[in-house]
């Protein structure tokens, strides 16, 4: 990790770049700094805190936030008195660990790298653009970033929302959307794709703070096109947040309020006053975009974002350099995380031959063997956590109390047990005191157990000879006003842990080898991309396609919104897949059965028809689900009844034909036909773009064609907004409709009639166009059966659910299973490709590692005691216990890699034949005994 660094230049070729960096001095020695914060307390100079958007004051010597990585303070040279004026230096003697070093100089460093991933993020809209909304002139006009910090409970106002002008709590607030986006005035024609979501989020958070506050969101289109995002908007409306479709012209101070002037669709100018105005500012290209372009040679698009193509969304114009995140185009966190993984896959392909050469595996000393005859020597370490624990709990008392216990041969206190020097101290103590069990009383094992276990390994102890007691989250923090009771509780918990620790046995580390092959379900663009991306990284896959040829939905598409021809891309892609020696394509095929677990799946694929029907069995390590989706056909708007009513996909096919009337003279398009509350209750994300794409094609063929689009929100997010604008410029009329006033289509003979309410002219309109085109949405392909077979959860709408929307966007909750494409959610082709590349990166990880490590806390069966009753097998929720024949007797056996360590089997086994690593009966019983062996509880005045 290289922080505080400027990227100066890039030389060389893909596989062999030299990157030149300038590392600016922090003026603090990172190894010595303990992040105690004393320096900030003593620093006399004020410094506007950029982390809090300048809403608070910090000092030149500071850390942005407590969880910052690296957790080292730094000195901002722009305001430091010593650096600017050669005075002061108060911080130097204050620092107990002598970490401050004003002699640090900028360091130039060369990095030899094979590939580059660009993820510089986004920039902020210039303040001048915000001036018309009185930003900078009136203190109660804030940006959404500032507002985010204002609402944060850990922020400068502890989450109390107040007007800056006079400190009153705002009773009426306005959010103004599209500030600095969809705005040609500041040359940002694109849509920033995230502001609708964060505005709704901030509005909801505000309502949580104060349900009485009146909130209005002024918008042009609400673009909550992500999966399940519309639900949040509906929730916002349900709790009284108002959505007003209007363009805000300006904001002017008016007494102690702010006056908004806005125009609604029907051309009226209106005014409204609010106490506070939040500007939903867009995402701009990063400030150093031009610089990066100059140093690396990558091309930018007309908005200075990184230029990429629809079918290679993460590839820059330069070989060896890939891009991910908001620099590729404004996007939200899940999209960014997905692209990050996708970019990793591409970089991995570039560096394939050098894989594993630059990394070092850590060596541990041989593990000390421990037998039952050895004396149990427990060391207890009580952490003060600075003052987090010690200000409430009497740590010396807790430590001393533990010292009275049997088997405890050593006890001590530490300021921060997790700090580097404390870790060394623990290691040394283990050796000096010949400890063979360690108890640490500090914070949560959920966050810190791995760290301390690593320390044990370094000291030559098995990592399971460890027990952690949470005297912070469960004691000092929650009983802050009852220090004696908190101390008593800490003593009890430590005693219980010590008594458990005495019974802990070392557990062997278990690893399971991985079959280096993937099973990819679905031969559309997603599945093909996954298989190819894996093949290019060196891994084999079986590609299972249910129809007779691969290609999926791409076979039905003609061109993309950006103008690329689909057919030629598809041809190249399928040719690559078919030619690849690492991809085994099985068509007319479906997954019939699958068993196993991450690293070791075994699946049966049924393929062929009639006589040629056959079954093949494959062993593989991972599964990628890319089963896709298809256009929904609602039984609405005379679809299927009148020849003059078609879907967007049918229109696209017609437009590519040669027939004369393929681009009729008058067309009405109905968006969200069957979606967002009709038979599908979600937004399909692609239909608005699909409509615009077809419109531009029609206008190309027949410029005089009259096109009316009836829509709810035009969701041409990102750079597609340009095409929307182009369509408007070409005279296409866009009329929004309300959900309770959907257009009505009737047919009589060959004629088709559309009745709708024109919200612009405010009148009922009846038309008989040549053609009605419906934007019908997307449904997933047969996810129900697969969901049962692979135990994969789906959303209410049948799309597969990822393990975590932001942290694990392409992984399924089941280990070794990955999801991408339309099976995950409706999305355009470039997003599908990026997601497929991401899935290929994630799926490659276990294949690269070659082994899956199993946490040794899993269950194990003592087969001598097993009577073969099978209760455990029937109860195990993960299918991790099987019955097998041993010497003609039924015996249970755990499949460690599938076991999640829940312990149901152990608690139900009638002969106590099943034991849980780290949670044996013996350990837990002795922990319970320790709970009772002293009347410790003394009444405390509440």
């Amino acid at each position, binding site marked *: 990790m290289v922080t505080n660094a400027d990227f100066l230049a890039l030389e060389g070729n893909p596989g062999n770049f030299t990157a030149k960096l300038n590392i600016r001095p922090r003026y603090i020695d990172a190894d010595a700094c303990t992040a105690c914060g004393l320096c900030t307390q003593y620093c006399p100079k004020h410094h506007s805190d950029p982390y809090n958007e300048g809403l608070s004051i910090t000092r030149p010597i500071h850390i942005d936030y407590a969880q910052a990585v690296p957790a080292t303070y730094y000195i901002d040279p722009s305001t430091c008195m010593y650096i600017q004026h050669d005075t002061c230096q108060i911080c130097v003697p204050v620092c107990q660990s002598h970490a401050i070093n004003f002699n640090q100089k900028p360091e130039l460093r060369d990095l030899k790298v094979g590939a580059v991933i660009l993820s510089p993020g986004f920039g902020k809209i210039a303040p001048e653009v915000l001036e018309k909304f009185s930003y900078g002139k009136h203190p109660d006009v804030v940006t959404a970033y500032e507002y985010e910090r204002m609402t944060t409970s850990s922020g400068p106002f502890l989450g109390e929302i107040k007007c800056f002008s006079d400190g009153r709590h705002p009773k009426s607030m306005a959010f103004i959307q599209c500030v600095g986006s969809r705005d040609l005035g500041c040359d940002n024609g694109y849509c920033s794709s995230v502001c609708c979501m964060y505005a709704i989020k901030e509005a909801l958070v505000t309502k949580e703070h104060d349900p009485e506050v009146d909130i209005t969101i002024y918008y042009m289109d609400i673009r909550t096109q992500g999966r399940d995002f519309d639900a949040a908007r509906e929730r916002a409306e349900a709790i009284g947040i108002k959505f007003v479709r209007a363009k805000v012209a300006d904001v002017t101070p008016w007494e102690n309020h702010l006056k908004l002037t806005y125009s609604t669709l029907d051309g009226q100018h209106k005014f409204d006053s609010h106490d506070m105005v939040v500007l939903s500012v867009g995402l701009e290209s990063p400030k150093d975009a031009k610089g990066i372009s100059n140093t690396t040679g990558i091309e930018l698009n007309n908005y200075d974002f990184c230029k990429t193509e629809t079918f290679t969304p993460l590839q820059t114009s330069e070989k060896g350099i890939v891009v991910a995140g908001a620099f590729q185009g404004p996007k939200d966190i899940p999209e960014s995380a997905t692209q990050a993984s996708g970019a990793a896959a591409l970089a991995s392909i570039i560096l394939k031959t050098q894989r594993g050469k630059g990394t070092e595996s850590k060596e541990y000393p041989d593990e000390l063997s421990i037998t039952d005859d050895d004396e149990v020597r427990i060391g207890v370490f009580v952490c003060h956590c600075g003052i987090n624990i010690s200000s409430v709990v009497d740590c010396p008392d807790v430590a001393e109390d533990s010292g009275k216990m049997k088997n405890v041969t050593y006890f001590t206190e530490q300021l921060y047990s997790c700090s580097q020097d404390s870790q060394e101290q623990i290691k040394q103590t283990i050796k000096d005191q010949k400890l063979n069990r360690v108890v640490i009383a500090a914070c*949560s094992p959920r966050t810190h157990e791995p760290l301390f276990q690593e320390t044990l390994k370094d000291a030559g102890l098995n990592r399971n000879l460890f027990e952690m007691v949470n005297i912070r989250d469960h004691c000092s*923090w929650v009983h802050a006003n009852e220090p004696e009771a908190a101390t008593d509780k800490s003593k009890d918990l430590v005693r219980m842990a010590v008594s458990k620790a005495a019974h802990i046995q070392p557990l062997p580390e278990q690893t399971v080898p991985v079959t280096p092959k993937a099973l990819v379900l679905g031969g559309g663009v997603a599945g093909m991309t996954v298989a190819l991306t894996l093949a290019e990284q060196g891994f084999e896959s079986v590609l299972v396609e249910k129809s007779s040829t691969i290609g999926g939905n791409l076979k039905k598409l003609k061109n993309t919104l950006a103008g690329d021809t689909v057919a030629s891309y598809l041809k190249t892609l399928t040719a690559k897949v078919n030619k690849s020696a690492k991809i085994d394509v099985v068509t007319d095929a479906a997954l019939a059965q699958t068993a196993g677990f991450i690293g070791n799946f075994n699946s049966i694929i049924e393929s062929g028809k009639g006589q040629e029907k056959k079954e093949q069995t494959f062993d593989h390590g991972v599964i990628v689900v890319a089963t896709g989706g298809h256009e929904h056909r609602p039984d609405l708007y005379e679809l299927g009844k009148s020849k003059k009513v078609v879907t967007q996909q049918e229109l696209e096919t017609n437009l590519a034909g040669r027939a004369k009337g393929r681009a009729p003279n008058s067309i009405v398009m109905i968006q969200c036909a069957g979606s967002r509350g009709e038979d599908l209750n979600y937004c399909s994300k692609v239909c608005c773009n699909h409509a615009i794409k077809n419109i531009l094609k029609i206008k190309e063929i027949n410029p005089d064609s009259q096109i009316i689009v009836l829509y709810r929100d035009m969701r041409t997010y990102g750079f597609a907004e340009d095409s929307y604008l182009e369509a408007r410029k070409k005279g296409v009329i866009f009329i929004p409709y309300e959900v309770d006033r959907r257009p009505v289509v009737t047919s009589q003979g060959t004629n088709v009639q559309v009745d709708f309410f024109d919200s612009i002219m405010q009148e009922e309109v009846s038309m008989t166009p040549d053609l009605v085109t419906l934007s019908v949405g997307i449904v997933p392909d047969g996810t129900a059966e697969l969901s049962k077979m692979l135990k994969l959860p789906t959303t209410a709408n049948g799309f597969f659910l990822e393990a975590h929307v932001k942290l694990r966007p392409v992984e399924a909750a089941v280990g070794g299973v990955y999801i991408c494409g339309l099976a995950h959610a409706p999305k355009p082709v470039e997003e599908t490709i990026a997601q497929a590349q991401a899935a290929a990166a994630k799926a490659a990880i276990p294949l690269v590692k070659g082994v899956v490590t199993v946490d040794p806390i899993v269950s194990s069966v003592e087969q001598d005691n097993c009577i073969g009753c099978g209760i455990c097998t029937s109860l195990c929720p993960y299918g991790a216990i099987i019955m097998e024949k041993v010497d003609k007797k039924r015996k249970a056996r755990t499949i460690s890699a599938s076991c999640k360590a*829940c312990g149901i089997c152990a608690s139900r086994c009638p002969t106590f034949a099943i034991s*849980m690593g780290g949670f044996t*009966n013996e350990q*837990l019983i002795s922990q319970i005994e320790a*709970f009772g062996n002293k009347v410790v509880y003394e009444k405390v005045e509440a």
Partner: protein
Amino acid sequence: MSDNSFSPKILGFLCNWCCYAAADAAGVSRFQYPPNLRTVRVMCTGRVDPSFVLKGFLEGADAIFTGG
């Protein structure tokens, strides 16, 4: 509060994934609650053998709490 007010001794079995995590979260948000609980962490409340509960009562618990 008078001296003879009842202060129960409670033994709790907390699931690592939910209830133990919730207890951590209570700490992070400084949520104050009575200090009568002593906890045993398990990887899942499925691990809680009925005999553990009986053992807890035998050892003098006034109440047993399982959270999972």
